[in-house]
Structures are given as C-alpha cells and as structure tokens.
C-alpha cells in the first residue's frame, strides 16, 4: 500500500513513543498537520515557535525522553534558532522538525524559504534536509538515536512540502548505518588511567568532586555519585546544570561553585589537592580565570565527550564514558581504609560553611528576592520542579532552592536564554503533571515569552510563575553598578505592564505581592490553585547577587555585600 510522507512521519513518531509535540503550523506543514488531525498524539499549540522549542526542551530535561517540536518554513524555522542553540549548549535531546518549500523551489528565494539546514549547522548535533520521501523514515530513526546517544543534543530535520505529499511503498524498518567511531583509547591505556585515578584518590588529602549536567543526564548516576562521595568522604560541589546531582542538604554538599557559587565551594576548589570533574566542562562561569582555577590540585576528568577533555584545563587523568558507569567503577575501586585522611579537610570546610553562609539583608517592609525563593523552597518542601529565566532570578533560584534530586532544576545554563523558563515550565509540567512546577522569573525575562500564558491556560497546564519584579534587567544593572559607575544604561524597565491584569487577561490567576508578610500566603494560594498563576513579587529594586566573582578573576577572590 502506498503511503504519503506525512503518514510515514506520524507513524514513525508513534514508533518512537512520541505522545506529545509542541508546534506551530504553517503553509508547508499542511500535509503533516492534516495527518496529525486524527493521530493519537497530543499537539500543544504554542503562541510562538520559540515557546514550542523551549517547551520541548523543558519536557526533555525533566523526563529524559526526546522533546519534539515543529515549526513551519522561513520565519517559523528561524524562530527555532535560539531554542536549538539553548538545547545544544546544554546537551538536551530535542528533535525539531521544520517545514520547507517544495524541493523544486529550493534555492529560489521562494515565499517563506530560509536555509534552516545551513543556519542550524553550528547549533545542532546533526541536521538533515530530506529530499526524498524514501529516506524519511530512516532519517527520523537516525535523528532519535543521535539526539539521545552519547552526549545528547538537538537534531533538526527539514521537510520540504512535496516530501510530505509524495506517496511511496511502505518503507522497511531502517537499519542504522551511522558510522561508529573506534574507542578513544586502547584498553591498556584505559586501565592505566583508571589506576592513576584510583591512586590519586587514595593519596588525596583535600579532594573535591565537581559534578555537572552529565550526572543528571546519565540515568542513576546520582546514586553512584552519592555512593562514591560517602564511601570516600569527598565533598561535592555542583554546577548550575548539575543541581540535583547530589542532595544539597547532604553534609558533604558544598552547593554550587563559580561566579555566584558559595564561598565555601569556591574556597574548597581553590584549596583542594584533587579535583574530580564529572560530566562538567569547565565553563568560564565556573572557573573564572582558568589559570587560577584549582591550581593546587591534580585534575581528573570523567566525561562522555572526549572533546571536552583538555579543552579549557589540562588534566592529569581522565576516563570517557557514562557518568554512572565511571562513578560506579571508582566507587568499587577505592578502599576506604587505604585512603589518606580527609578529617582536617572536612573540618576546614565546615568552618568555611559556618563563617561564610549564603546570606541576604532583611529590610523592614521590603521583599528580598532571596526570601521569595526561600519561601517557595519551604512551601514546596524542596520537591518542586524549578525552571528559571536568566539573570539574577536564575542565580537566586540556584542559591536558595536546594535540590535533592535530578531533573528538577531546569535552567538555560550554557546559552543563558532569557525567556526560556516559562515555556520550559509548560513542557516540564506536561512531562510531570504530578509535580509542582515553578518558573522563577524576572520581569524582563518573563516578557520575552509571556504570550505562552495562552498555551498554559488553554491546555490547563498548571504552572506557577514567580516574578521577582525589580523593574530592572537586574543582572546587567548589577554589573553597571559595580563596574560601570552606576550608569544604568538601558536597564530600567520603565513601562512594565500590570502583570496581574495580563495574567487575568489570559485567564490565569494574577497575584500582586508588595510586603514580606504576604509572600508565604501568596505562594500557598498559588500552589492550591488548580490553574496557571502569576505572582508579581515587587522586590527590592537594587538588590544584588552575592557572592560574586568579578569577571576574569579567580573564583576564591569574591566580592560581597559592603557592610552598611
């Protein structure tokens, strides 16, 4: 029996267990949308293509499954670009489909034509322009495989309209012919590296584990990490992407490191004699000036991507593989009685924790943004899924919402995409309807994808948005205050709308909170409400994120609030 490309498309999605896609139709996608009309797939119509891809990304991050999104050709496709780059930087398995003009029109500057294949080369793990319906099924199988295998990442498939309408004989189930690369090192070399690492661990007196997003992505790695840390008594610091890889309430937890990390995490990294990096990539927001980073330490790197080893910092030993397997191997390999004592080191760290806890000023009648995050943490018992926007809101969320399990802190770490958090929250809630989902937002970021309120309300996606409204692009303002003589060039968001009315206009509940006393009540009310809620917290307008490593500085050389 002959089948159209559009029918093969839908069948292949179903073969991959796809039950939800986020998308926005358009002219060249009509054949596929017609096929979706009666398909057992939930299509979430967002109000902007960028919302669709961020939602697919959020869905993927919390579920571990592939997030699928779709947009039409030309402007629809280019609206996916920020989302592709976001997913690429944070290694998120997203498969994005774009409609394209028919193959005979390609390259003619046709209506709504854009070379999304060319545009997306540097921001996808792989991409395709399918010119033959007979290849469609195979391409889709490859795309789903590539998105999730090894180091995950986004894959884009560009689908010309005639490829969707052409009828072909039922295609066979494809056999993947992707090239497999040989192992990165010989078995002997691997054994040598492993023995070296075990001996470094046994000799270390001041070790630290630095865990990143790779631990979140590798199923079960958090258990292996905990086992290793507890067995060898090694303190653990996580990156922004690694939040939830190790319980932040654990005595061995140092919280987050880096530019806005805790003082004790950064001091520990600066003073450690062994740093074990796992699933992390020595981002500049983590290392500060790389030549000053962990300079007293031997460095061990465990990662799935050989290209990350030695990229920023030369390492003393490394292993390539899934974080879970490597951590397990190390945990099994060490003998606690053979380890050097870490007693003094752990005492030193406890002292730092007592001397330099995270703290913020409490002013009479003024809401501290940190207090709002703390209250969300209290009222959700640390069990919510938190998404963030980018800037101060993101850093306060990271500092004050302690995470104890993976896939619960969803943030655009690498690309730093404002407008990410709200659509990602929608995707997260659809993937995990039983969990409370809070987007911790700023008044700037929220307005970048505020139109998705319609998506949330119409689809009854019960997400909560907590706007830390300071009337500024707060993080940029903070830099202007500290490094540009308080010249607040273009960072005051004059003309902000009434967020309560906006929420109401879309059919969500809007709450305005202007005093600290109202904060816990508003959060409780939002949680109890069975629909999307936007809480507009009017917070201290010029509060800063501290501690802070000035750009280009060493991470143990941090700025803090001046005592007034």
């Amino acid at each position, binding site marked *: 029996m002959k089948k159209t490309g559009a029918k093969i498309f839908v069948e292949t999605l179903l073969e991959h267990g796809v039950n939800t896609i986020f998308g926005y139709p358009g002219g060249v996608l009509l054949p596929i949308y017609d096929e979706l009309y009666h398909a057992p797939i939930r299509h979430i119509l967002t109000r902007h293509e960028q919302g669709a891809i961020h939602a697919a990304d959020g869905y993927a991050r919390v579920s571990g499954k592939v997030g699928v999104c779709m947009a039409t050709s030309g402007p629809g496709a280019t609206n996916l670009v920020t989302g592709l780059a976001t997913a690429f930087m944070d290694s998120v398995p997203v498969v994005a489909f774009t409609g394209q003009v028919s193959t005979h029109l390609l390259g003619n500057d046709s209506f709504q034509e854009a070379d999304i294949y060319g545009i997306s*080369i540097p921001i996808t793990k792989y991409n395709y322009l399918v010119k033959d319906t007979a290849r469609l099924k195979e391409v889709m199988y490859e795309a789903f495989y590539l998105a999730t295998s090894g180091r995950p990442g986004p894959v884009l498939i560009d689908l010309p309209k005639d490829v969707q309408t052409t009828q072909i004989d039922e295609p066979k189930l494809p056999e993947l012919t*992707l090239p497999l*690369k040989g192992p990165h090192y010989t078995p002997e070399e691997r054994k040598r590296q492993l023995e070296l690492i075990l001996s470094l661990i046994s000799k270390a007196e001041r070790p630290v584990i630095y865990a990143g997003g790779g631990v979140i992505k590798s199923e079960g790695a958090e258990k292996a990490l905990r086992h290793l840390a507890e067995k060898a008594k090694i303190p653990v610091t996580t990156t922004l992407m690694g939040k939830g890889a190790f319980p932040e309430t654990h005595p061995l937890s140092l919280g987050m490191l880096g530019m806005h990390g805790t003082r004790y995490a950064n001091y520990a990294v600066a003073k450690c004699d062994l740093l074990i990096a796992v699933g992390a990539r020595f981002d500049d927001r983590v290392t500060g000036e790389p030549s000053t980073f962990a300079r007293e330490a031997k460095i061990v790197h465990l990662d799935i*991507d050989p*290209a990350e080893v030695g990229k920023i910092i030369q390492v003393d030993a490394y292993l390539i593989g899934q974080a879970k397997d490597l951590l397990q191997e190390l945990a099994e390999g060490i003998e606690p009685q053979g380890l050097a004592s870490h007693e003094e080191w752990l005492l030193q760290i406890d002292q730092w924790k007592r001397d330099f806890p995270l703290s913020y000023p409490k002013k009479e009648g003024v809401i501290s943004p940190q207090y709002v995050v703390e209250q969300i943490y209290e009222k959700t018992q640390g069990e919510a899924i938190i998404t963030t926007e980018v800037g101060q809101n993101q850093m306060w969320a990271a500092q004050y919402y302690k995470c104890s399990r993976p896939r619960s802190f969803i943030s655009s770490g690498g690309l730093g995409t404002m407008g990410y958090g709200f659509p990602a929250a929608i995707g997260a809630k659809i993937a995990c309807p039983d969990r409370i989902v809070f987007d911790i937002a700023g008044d700037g970021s929220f307005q970048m994808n505020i139109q998705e309120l319609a998506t949330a309300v119409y689809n009854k996606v019960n997400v909560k948005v907590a706007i830390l409204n300071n009337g500024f692009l707060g993080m940029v303002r903070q830099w202007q205050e500290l490094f540009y003589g308080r010249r607040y060039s273009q960072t005051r968001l004059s003309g902000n709308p009434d967020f309560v009315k906006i929420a109401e206009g879309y059919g969500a509940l809007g709450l305005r909170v202007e005093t600290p006393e109202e904060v816990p009540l508003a959060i409780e009310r939002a949680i109890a409400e069975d629909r999307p809620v936007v809480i507009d917290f009017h917070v201290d307008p010029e509060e800063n994120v501290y501690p802070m490593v000035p750009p280009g500085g060493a991470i143990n050389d941090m700025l803090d609030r001046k005592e007034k």
Partner: protein
Amino acid sequence: MRHIISVLVRNHPGVLSHVVGLFTRRSYNIESLAAGVTENPEITRITIVVTGDDRVLDQVMKQVNKLVDVLSVSDLKYDQAITRELAIITVKTTLQTRGAVIEIANVFGAKVVDMSEDTITLELSGTERVLQNLVRLLKPFGISEMARTGMIALAMKSSEEQ
C-alpha cells in the same frame, strides 16, 4: 605550526560545511583544502592544510572527530606523508622567451598543455616545494593565470613499517 589534516567522511551533502565551520570558528586559517572520493565511493577524503596553535588544533580535531559524518581524523607528519599538488599555470611569452619557458618546464618535468601566440600553459604535479620553485622561476616572464588544487596527502606506509 603547519599541519596536514586528513579527514575521512561519509559522502553526504553538507559535510564539508560542517568540517570547515569548526576550523573557521576557532580562527584556524585554512591554507588549502582538497576533497575527493576514496577507494570506497561512499567515502570522501578531505585534506586540509592549516597553520595555528598546536593545542587549539588538538581541540579542533577532537571536535571534527565528533561530527556524525566524520569517520576518522589524522594529523599527517610532513616527513611521513606523500604529498602532492597539481598546478596549471599560464605564462606570458614572446617569441624570444618561449624557448626559455619550455626549458624550465622540461627541467621540472612540467607538461606543456596549451600554447598561443603569447602564452604557454604548463601543468605540473609535485610537492608544494617543487611547485613553489617552478612558480618562482616563471614569475619574471609574467604569470597571467594560475590554478592549484590544494594539497592531497596519504600517510607513507614504508615509514610506518620502520
């Protein structure tokens, strides 16, 4: 330092942009690039000559190796590789200089592939150095046009055995 990077890729559309993109992004200057099919029609060999920092190159090679269509990447050592390049050079001649140009061509083993009243077109394949020498000697006569393929290279099997 100067490097000859040999990349084997699946013969897919777009693969060249993927590979080249990684070099240009890390501000690696590509001096020459030649691509052609191998003994297996589905596989293309891309030979890239680049100059730059060795540590950055190591990174770029790892990134290239990550590309789905890339089968292998190697950094060929100059003294352990056979390198060849083809040049077609059109030289201005007069009745008086024609003989001298042909003489130079003969010394280099270059073939005369075309001749007009006031030009001679030569073809020569050889190592980069040989081509450079030929070009240097022809320059005084006036080179009106030149096309070069860029270097292709294979590892020298005899040097691997030693």
